[in-house]
């Protein structure tokens, strides 16, 4: 995340009369990043989101979108350049799906032909059949409607997407599906997304970074891992128990990988007294190309000797470098083992993860 800053809030506040709904909030969202705002209801997260496209004008502070102060931009143009997805979807019931998707293009008075082409393109992007373009919103299920909602937000190809609890009104199974699809889509479209939710699991899953709000204030900002390590009482109670597991689900095993291991070539001469083997009960055996062959117990070796291929035991089970730490830990628990080898898809031995290495990641 070294891209340019697309959205920036500097000490932004919102008053309704005497009520301070948003209190001196500052954050930056970089190009291609999903920034999640989360907090209990009434914490000001939705208000904060709506100030970015000025559906709610801010009282003080500054908001910059692509480097420009939003108060100096034409509000209508600003909104047309930002995609907007809301919880209650808000499809227009009197328009076909095609006209709903192309609504921004209609507002911008784009030619009909272009509207149609864009709608055809986008309905495929969100995984709905082309025939749905002629249908009306009420003929679609909630999940399908929200796909149309996402397609509509992408119509004008905005750099920035604002999503206000976009998957809050659909059932859990559909929600997970939509989350996965959005993440998959994000791989290719690389939009800058500000995402509001009240669901910490969703925040950990979707967010590159997460901002936790409380009573109008931004309490903390960080990655899922940073949030889990937070010692603040409110943050701890808000993310609740089990949050560690959700966070581990978002972290690849490579983050806790131990590479500094006794690795030996097959048929090599091994001396268990060598410093490299100190403290290890096992050595990992690879062939000339680094392909994993298994492991061998060092405890049974007496003095230097050549590795006996018959004594090399195959690896019990392993995980891929792309797997999450949660998956690796589950594997360890099922196998009653304190460690798990990490082997690439091509079979190269990369190292191991252990309870110890996971724990030190959390502590560090």
């Amino acid at each position: 995340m070294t891209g340019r800053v697309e959205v920036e809030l500097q000490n932004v506040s919102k008053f309704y009369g005497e009520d301070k709904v948003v209190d001196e909030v500052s954050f930056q969202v970089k190009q291609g990043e999903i920034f999640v705002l989360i907090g209990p209801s009434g914490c000001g997260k939705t208000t904060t989101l709506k100030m970015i496209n000025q559906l709610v004008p801010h009282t003080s502070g500054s908001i910059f979108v692509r480097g420009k102060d939003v108060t100096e931009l034409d509000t209508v143009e600003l909104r047309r350049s930002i995609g907007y997805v809301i919880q209650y979807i808000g499809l227009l019931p009197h328009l076909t799906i095609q006209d709903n998707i192309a609504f921004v293009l209609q507002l911008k008075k784009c030619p009909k032909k272009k509207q149609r082409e864009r709608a055809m393109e986008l309905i495929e992007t969100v995984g709905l059949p082309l025939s749905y373009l002629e249908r009306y919103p009420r003929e679609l299920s909630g999940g399908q409607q929200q796909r149309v909602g996402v397609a509509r937000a992408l119509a004008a190809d905005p750099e920035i997407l604002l999503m206000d609890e976009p998957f809050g009104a659909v059932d859990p199974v559909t929600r997970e599906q939509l989350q996965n699809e959005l993440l998959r889509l994000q791989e290719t479209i690389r939009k800058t997304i500000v995402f509001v939710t009240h669901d910490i699991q969703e925040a950990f899953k979707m967010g590159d970074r997460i901002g936790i709000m409380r009573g109008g204030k931004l309490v903390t900002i960080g990655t899922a891992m940073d949030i889990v390590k937070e010692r603040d009482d409110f943050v701890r109670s808000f993310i609740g128990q089990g949050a560690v597991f959700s966070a581990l689900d978002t972290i690849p095993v490579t983050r806790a990988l131990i590479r500094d291991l006794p690795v030996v070539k097959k048929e090599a001469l091994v001396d268990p007294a060598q410093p490299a083997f100190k403290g290890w009960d096992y050595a990992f055996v690879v062939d000339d190309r680094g392909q994993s062959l298994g492991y061998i117990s060092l405890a049974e070796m007496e003095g230097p000797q050549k590795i006996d291929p018959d004594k090399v035991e195959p690896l019990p089970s392993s995980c891929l470098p792309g797997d999450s730490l949660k998956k690796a830990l589950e594997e360890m628990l099922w196998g009653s083992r304190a460690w798990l080898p990490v082997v690439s898809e091509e079979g190269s031995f990369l190292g191991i993860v252990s309870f110890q290495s996971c724990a030190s990641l959390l502590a560090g």
Partner: protein
Amino acid sequence: MAESILSFLSYFWVIRGQVAELTLQHTLLSLAGVLAGTLTAVPLGIFISRRPKIGSYVIDIAGMLYTIPSLAILGFLLPFLGLGWLPTIVALTIYSWLPVLRNTCAGLLGVDPAAKEAALGMGATSSQLLFRVELPMAFPIIMAGIRTVAVLTVGITTMGALVAAGGLGNLIFTGISMMDNRMILAGTIPVSLLAVLLDKLLGILEHKASLKMGVRG
């Protein structure tokens, strides 16, 4: 019984030319009333839907006007507008205000807030919001108000006969003064049929417009 029906029919046949002419007058007066009422009340309804405080007063006033007997309104307008079609159309306009105002207001206020928020969030200007989102979505309810008014107006137009505006009221009131039931019926039956017909016609128009705007069902 059969004899009196026969006698009515033969009477009706004799005056059919007059009935046709009066029906045409009646229709034109009614349509003018509905049109004037719609053209004044829909914009006012849009205005007050955005200002609920003023709105409740406006609807109260329209309600008060609505309760004034039609004869009294015509009597009141007479010194200012004289005789003829003008006071009749003004009276019809006044009667149409309450239903159209109320339905326009209710229709606009009933538009799904999520749809409005989404449209605004996507960068609709306030006129785009009104014409592309709010009015199309409120259209069936506004139209229901206009149809109510149409039926009501055809009935009230009858009173126009008293200020020399013409229409089927001529037959009815002359019939009453001459105690001629056949003449009263020759005026009343076309009025009722006209009311039903106009309602159906507006129903068809509404359906056509809905299809064009995409509001289905």
